[in-house]
């Protein structure tokens, strides 16, 4: 099955071309082409995953390379497909979500005038994303990275007649470009120093010390900038909530499960190049993002905006998890989040489809009308809130555990854990607020309530499937074994300072008593790649490993208890406020009006950027415009003016000197002609006089 891996991205690409060219003339407007392409892709992905699962080898790797561009033998650019365990998991995640979104769109986009084009865009997006997942070098991941950016631009702006959608897609594209620029710089820095683009080759070059120290940190942060853009991390998170202007399936596909996950995937993919400093930057960026977004979600009233900010927040968790060394934790959260967030988004799409509004203040009581949507939505909410037994608990707990472990080792960074833990409570609170306001209580808008109805089967079937995938038993166990942190490529000397910390954390598959034993067992082989030949004696090493495992175990136990406690607190608070109404949210809002306004205005990030970046750009443009108008144009006009003057002078010269010379020649000719004509009298004897005179003169000349 793995032989057919290249079909996974190529089929959607073919579907894109078919749909964009002849989609409208096909039966059913060509939706089955895209659906079939991604369906086959999903089948192949599952087949590949099955093979990988059968092998059950943490170091599984399938790598096909072929030369793509031969620059005269000096440099050969190779294209290739790299499939390891992470790729296999990501393929299934992306294909599953993409397939279900395709299926959902058949119902949701029904009757849209650009129906076939929508499916074409979905296909090109799937192609880009799958290509990104499968690529084996920085060069190709960058190409697909930009393709993802392009196709997200097309999808977000699909309803470009709406000004807000047109603005949102531009904003998404431009903000992403900012991050992509960092990515490009980081990639070029690596390329300039190592001269290779393949992941493995770059890692090898780093091991050989071709790039190290600050430069490597900068390269890592540069590449992480790409992830900041795509994964909507602070300070480039502003595009994601606006991008909710796209059709809801697009929000589910791009902003929940795949595109934003690309950044996390990238960080995971190039994990070995990051230095400890770079990791610290990553962790804090994640922390800032997860906290800010969660607080904004508290005050938002648009169902999709709440979900968008919760996406930002969860992505912050993933990034922070990766930053503190929880490689497995970050990627596990990526996987579980893809399922439950897609479920939430499609569920919100189902709700919007039913009531034709996105404001949760106009909903309420929908439980009675849309039982399937409500149940799936609640399951996904339980998952994101981190309730035990659901997938979000499993993965978020690993992240919290990794953060706590990092904090225990480096007490000055305990804030990472504290912030993440506090935000876990916030997450539970705002998600349950959303659920209660949407599905329970009395209907607040009877007109809309009366028109609400359950969505058709092709819309709720994906919901049910995704809700089913929101339980933790799908992930626990194998994930921690198969997805293990790759050895850092940083040479031992510098790795030793940081080395041990993430090693044990990553190997720890799941917290709690049931997996504790496995965690101890697995951390021992995991630590090995960090300390090659020059490692300390075996006994010392073993003791250290067991100490690490013990620390990790403790950290994860505390993290689990505290996260369950905080989560319960958040849920309880949501019930107290919105279900029982013991606390009036209006009163709370009015009593801390400045905070509420601050949150409602999303921390004034848009205004801040408007004032600084955009305003600065505009001011710069105006200055440039002034310079252009006055200095450059002045210079050009001056040159032109000088030209006019010179021409005037030359014209005078031409008129008087040159023409004067010409006329003078003519005048002289005329004058001399009229002078000499007097000698031509026509009288014969005059000529004879001259003749005779001439003879006499010749005679005289001869004589004297």
């Amino acid at each position, binding site marked *: 099955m793995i032989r057919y891996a290249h079909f996974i991205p190529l089929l959607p690409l073919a579907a894109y071309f078919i749909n964009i060219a002849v989609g409208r003339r096909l039966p059913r407007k060509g939706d089955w082409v895209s659906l079939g392409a991604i369906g086959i892709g999903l089948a192949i992905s599952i087949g590949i995953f099955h093979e990988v699962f059968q092998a059950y080898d943490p170091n599984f790797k399938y790598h096909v390379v072929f030369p793509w561009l031969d620059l005269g033998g000096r440099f050969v650019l190779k294209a290739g497909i790299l499939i390891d365990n992470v790729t296999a998991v990501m393929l299934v995640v992306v294909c599953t979500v993409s397939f279900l979104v395709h299926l959902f769109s058949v119902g949701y986009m029904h009757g849209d005038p650009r129906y076939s084009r929508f499916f074409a865009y979905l296909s090109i997006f799937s192609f880009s994303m799958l290509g990104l997942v499968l690529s084996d070098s920085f060069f190709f991941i960058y190409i697909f990275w930009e393709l993802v950016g392009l196709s997200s631009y097309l999808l977000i702006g699909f309803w470009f007649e709406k000004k807000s959608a047109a603005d949102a897609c531009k904003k998404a594209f431009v903000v992403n470009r900012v991050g992509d620029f960092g990515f490009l710089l980081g990639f070029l820095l690596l390329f300039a120093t190592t001269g290779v683009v393949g992941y493995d080759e770059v890692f090898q070059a780093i091991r050989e010390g071709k790039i190290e120290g600050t430069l490597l940190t900068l390269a890592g942060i540069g590449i992480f900038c790409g992830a900041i853009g795509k994964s909507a991390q602070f300070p480039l998170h502003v595009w994601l909530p606006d991008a909710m202007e796209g059709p809801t399936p697009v929000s589910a596909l791009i902003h929940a499960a795949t595109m934003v996950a690309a950044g996390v995937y990238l960080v995971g993919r190039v994990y070995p190049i990051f230095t400890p400093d770079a990791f610290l930057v990553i962790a804090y960026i994640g922390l800032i993002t997860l906290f800010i977004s969660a607080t904004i979600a508290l005050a938002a009233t648009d169902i999709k905006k709440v979900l968008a900010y919760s996406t930002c927040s969860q992505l912050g968790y993933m990034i922070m998890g990766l930053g503190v060394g929880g490689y497995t934790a970050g990627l596990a959260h990526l996987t579980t989040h893809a399922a439950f967030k897609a479920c939430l988004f499609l569920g919100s799409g189902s709700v919007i489809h039913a009531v034709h509004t996105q404001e949760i203040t106009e909903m309420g009581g929908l439980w009675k009308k849309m039982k399937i949507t409500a149940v799936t939505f609640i399951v996904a909410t339980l998952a994101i809130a981190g309730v035990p037994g659901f997938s979000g608990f499993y993965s978020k707990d690993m992240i919290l555990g990794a953060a706590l472990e990092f904090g225990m080792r480096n007490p000055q960074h305990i804030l990472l854990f504290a912030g993440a833990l506090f935000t876990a409570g916030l997450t539970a609170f705002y998600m349950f607020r959303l659920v209660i306001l949407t599905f329970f209580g009395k209907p607040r808008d009877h007109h809309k309530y009366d028109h609400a109805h359950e969505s058709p089967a092709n819309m709720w079937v994906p919901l049910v499937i995704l809700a089913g995938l929101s339980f933790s038993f799908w992930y626990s166990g194998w994930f921690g074994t198969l997805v293990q942190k790759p050895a850092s490529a940083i040479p031992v000397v510098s790795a030793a300072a940081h080395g041990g910390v993430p090693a044990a954390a990553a190997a720890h598959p799941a917290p709690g008593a049931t997996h504790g034993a496995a965690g101890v067992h697995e951390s021992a082989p995991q630590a090995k790649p960090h300390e090659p030949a020059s490692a300390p004696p075996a006994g010392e090493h073993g003791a250290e490993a067991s100490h690490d495992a013990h620390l990790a175990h403790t950290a994860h136990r505390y993290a689990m208890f505290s996260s369950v406690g905080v989560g319960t607190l958040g849920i309880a608070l949501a019930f107290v406020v919105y279900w029982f109404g013991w606390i009036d949210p209006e009163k709370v809002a009015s009593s801390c009006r400045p905070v509420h306004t601050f949150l409602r205005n999303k921390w004034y990030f848009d205004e801040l950027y408007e004032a600084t970046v955009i305003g600065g750009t505009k001011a710069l443009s105006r200055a440039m415009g002034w310079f252009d108008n006055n200095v450059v144009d002045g210079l050009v006009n001056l040159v032109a003016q000088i030209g006019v003057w010179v021409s005037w002078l030359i014209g005078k010269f031409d008129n008087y000197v040159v023409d004067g010379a010409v006329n003078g020649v003519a005048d002289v000719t005329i004058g001399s002609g009229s002078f000499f004509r007097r000698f031509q009298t026509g009288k014969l004897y005059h000529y*004879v006089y001259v003749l005779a005179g001439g003879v006499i003169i010749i005679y005289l000349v001869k004589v004297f």
Partner: protein
Amino acid sequence: MSLEKLLVISAALFCCGLYAILTRRNAVAVLMGVELVLNAASINFVAFSHYVSRVIGGQIFAIFVIVLAAAEAAVALAIFLRLYATTGTVEVDTADHLKG
């Protein structure tokens, strides 16, 4: 008779001819002056032929000149007739059409 005397006669004859050409206004008189100049030249040819070169060529040339003068007179008189027919006179002053 010596060469010098012949040359003096010839020069006198030439001067008479030239004088006639320069002073006379009547075209026929001018033509007669031209005849005198030609005859002066012929005398020179014959004289030099007899006294200097000792070959008959110069004398033959004189005969040619006489023939030529006859032809010239015929042509010139024909021109004068046409001139008289056009202008009613043979005064050379009136025949100044080639004036620049």
